[in-house]
């Protein structure tokens, strides 16, 4: 599926301006001047896309409608029908979610003497972690410094991040890189052994460590192997659907469901680590997403129901460059590394309209403005909008073969549809990528509820209202490791009381008090509903759903 004929002129424009653009660099928008474009074009600022929560610890706070529905949802279980004396697993530390954060936490908790159980929704490692491409930040070049990393992170977050969390993030970073290497991760390096680092958006200096553009794959398969080698007990296709508490107000385990048979099982645990990742498959505001199939905000729902406050859940990250064409890979992430290596973002005339390394929120807004207000986007045959990302410029700067060597995943993914990104630009548009905020927690991973810990994309505060590229993969290892240690320590000290599901009953009373008694969505959601329902079997499914965005899923 090469580009349609009618796009050829625009592609020629891109080629014609390329030589001139080799030296052209647009200025970045100063911090003080970012707000107007954000307010007008960033999806977070669309008033009607959010509503105030009516119940729970964040009552009164605004959050996207899709998330609000689930946070105010009802439980999958009837607490009266569950016999809490029949425990299936009795462990020190239960880790919910086996992406990068969960796997790191499991390894470290076990090292610290805990008997660990790792449970996850799909397979071990079917997670956002496996798809991360651009890399992991760590200020380990001698001309860089953790203080500069701190400054970049705060600025990228529009100064809304939690200073203590950011401090932990930047100071642990180099050790995370070394730890992963000792586990057998192959980082891209120069012949002298120094790390080959790339600058992603908002970074003052190249700081991102990668493994081609299969960084997350490389890291996740190593961690998964290590979890198996160390005989850590894990259960797949068994998501947590409710937390269990004890009569002292501590989190003390979880109810799991077998996704295929619907059988429930009960875990008693002295500490529970929430590591369930992100939210993309809620398709906030109908955006396509880069996230994996199981990214449905479950951890936020479970934690919220036991009274754990959330932070910054009024912001989502829309990655500026996701595939807009072909339809089969709509929403596929086009890693920021492409821009880090030198690809510029261009309109229909082949002209730049923004610095390619603006922070994500700013660049996404600029792209939306270019398409929606200036009318300078390119429309695909199915009505998607997009702008060009000029990947061939990379080889012009760094020499032939650079794209092939550094971006094999991108080359292969577009190549499958007969688009050669070493010669042709990619058509891109913002997509739903990352949940900036999440469960409020402290640098040791503890939350406001005793016994409940959090790490990875599910927590919030580290990135404030906008995350920098390369800081999330760092976040999940920094806090995954920290939480593994603190959860193991907590398990040594705590005395559990009698198990209870009273909080579920209490939650249902609160829903009623708030007038939310009508049929509530059942949450956590677990998986998106992509299977076509029989009733629209014969109807104009293609127009209604394919074009209305509901199966704009890749």
């Amino acid at each position, binding site marked *: 599926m090469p580009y349609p004929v009618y796009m050829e002129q625009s592609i020629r424009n891109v080629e014609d301006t390329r030589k001139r653009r080799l030296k052209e660099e647009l200025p970045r928008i100063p911090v003080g001047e970012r707000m107007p474009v954000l307010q007008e074009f960033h999806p977070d600022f669309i008033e009607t896309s959010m509503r105030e929560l009516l119940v729970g610890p964040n009552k009164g706070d605004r959050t996207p409608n899709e998330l609000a529905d689930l946070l105010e949802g009802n439980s999958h279980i009837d607490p009266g029908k569950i016999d809490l004396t029949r425990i299936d697993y009795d462990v020190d530390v239960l880790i919910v979610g086996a992406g990068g954060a969960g796997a790191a936490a499991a390894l470290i908790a076990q090292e610290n003497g805990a008997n660990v159980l790792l449970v996850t929704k799909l397979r071990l490692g079917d997670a956002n972690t496996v798809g991360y491409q651009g890399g992991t930040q760590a200020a380990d070049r001698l001309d860089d410094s953790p203080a500069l990393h701190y400054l970049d992170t*705060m600025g990228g977050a529009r*100064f809304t991040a939690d*200073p203590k969390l950011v401090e932990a993030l930047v100071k642990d970073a180099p050790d995370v890189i070394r730890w992963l*290497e000792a586990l057998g991760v*192959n980082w891209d390096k120069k012949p002298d*052994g120094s790390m080959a680092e790339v600058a992603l958006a908002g970074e003052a200096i190249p700081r991102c460590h990668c493994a081609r553009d299969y960084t997350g*794959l490389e890291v996740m398969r190593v961690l998964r192997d290590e979890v198996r080698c160390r005989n850590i007990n894990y259960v797949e296709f068994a998501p947590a659907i409710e937390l269990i508490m004890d009569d002292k107000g501590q989190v003390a385990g979880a109810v799991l469901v077998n996704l295929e048979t619907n059988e429930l099982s009960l875990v008693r645990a002295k500490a529970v680590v929430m590591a369930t990742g992100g939210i993309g498959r809620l398709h906030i505001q109908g955006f396509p997403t880069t996230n994996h199939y199981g990214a449905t905000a479950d951890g936020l729902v479970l934690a919220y129901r036991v009274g754990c406050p959330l932070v910054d859940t009024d912001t989502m990250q829309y990655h500026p460059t996701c595939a807009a064409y072909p339809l089969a890979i709509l929403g596929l992430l086009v890693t920021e590394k492409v821009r880090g290596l030198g690809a510029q973002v261009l309109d229909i005339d082949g002209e730049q309209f923004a610095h390619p390394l603006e922070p994500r929120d700013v660049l996404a807004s600029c792209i939306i403005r270019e398409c929606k207000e200036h009318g300078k986007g390119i429309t695909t045959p199915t009505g998607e909008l997009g702008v060009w990302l000029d990947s061939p410029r990379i080889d012009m700067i760094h020499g032939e073969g650079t794209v092939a060597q550094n971006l094999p*995943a991108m080359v292969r993914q577009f190549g499958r549809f007969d688009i050669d990104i070493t010669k042709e630009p990619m058509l891109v548009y913002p997509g739903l990528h990352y949940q900036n905020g999440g469960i409020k927690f402290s640098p040791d991973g503890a939350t406001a509820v005793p016994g409940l810990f959090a790490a990875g994309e599910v927590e919030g505060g580290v990135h404030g209202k906008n995350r920098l590229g390369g800081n999330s993969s760092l976040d999940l290892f920094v806090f995954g490791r920290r939480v593994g240690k603190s959860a193991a320590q907590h398990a040594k000290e705590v005395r559990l009381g009698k198990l209870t599901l009273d909080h579920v009953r209490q939650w249902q009373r609160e829903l009623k008090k708030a007038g939310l008694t009508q049929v509530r969505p059942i949450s956590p959601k677990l998986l998106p509903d992509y299977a*076509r329902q029989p009733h629209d079997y014969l109807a104009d499914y293609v127009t209604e759903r*394919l074009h209305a965005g509901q199966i704009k899923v890749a």
Partner: protein
Amino acid sequence: MAEPQDSTQVKTEKEAKMLDIYVMGKHYQVPEGLTIMTALEYCGYRLIRGCGCRAAFCGACGTVYNFKNDPVLRYALACQKLIEQDMYLTQIPFFPAAKPGYGLEKMEPTGEQILKIYPEIITCFGCNNCTKSCPQELEVMEFMSAAIRGDLEQVTAKSFDCLMCGLCAARCPQGLVPYNVALLCRRLHGRYLTPHSRHVDERIAEIEAGKFDVEIEELQKMSLEELKRRFDERPILKE
């Protein structure tokens, strides 16, 4: 203008071509342009197994297919392969292979080491089914030979883009598990054979010695205005 110029370029419902496919033998019609994965969903299947990243990174969706009048099996990632007329589809769940345990820290990055953990790899007789079944188009048999020779560098380079979807192991008549063998080789390579990054060690030592504490504390204590100014004025290195 880069917009579809007339209605023939915009696919509406009526114009979207419908293709005939067969899912586990049952006939369905689906619109052109869907992947195997989205076509299954279009047919009403709710996927639980065989679906992960939906973006060619996780290897959950390795699948086989053939055609109504052509029994030869083909291999693909269901999340990437577009539906074609008369495709016969089936969903095969990922079946995990047995995997020996080991501890990297007690190992050496050598061919003998690989053969100790995976002695059966010498039984490879070069049928090349593994290579033919790889949806990433990797030279699987070549990296298996490199593993037998103990050339970990080659294994790492050639297997790097492996999603561990399991199709090669499923097709190996000798029951070998190329994706696990390559994983062990890459891990040993990453830990022992890449040139050492001294600057990382140095930085870790500096952090442990508290070298940056004062500067970070200063940033934490300064006014928002001052912090913004520091941010805007920070030098941006270009390479």
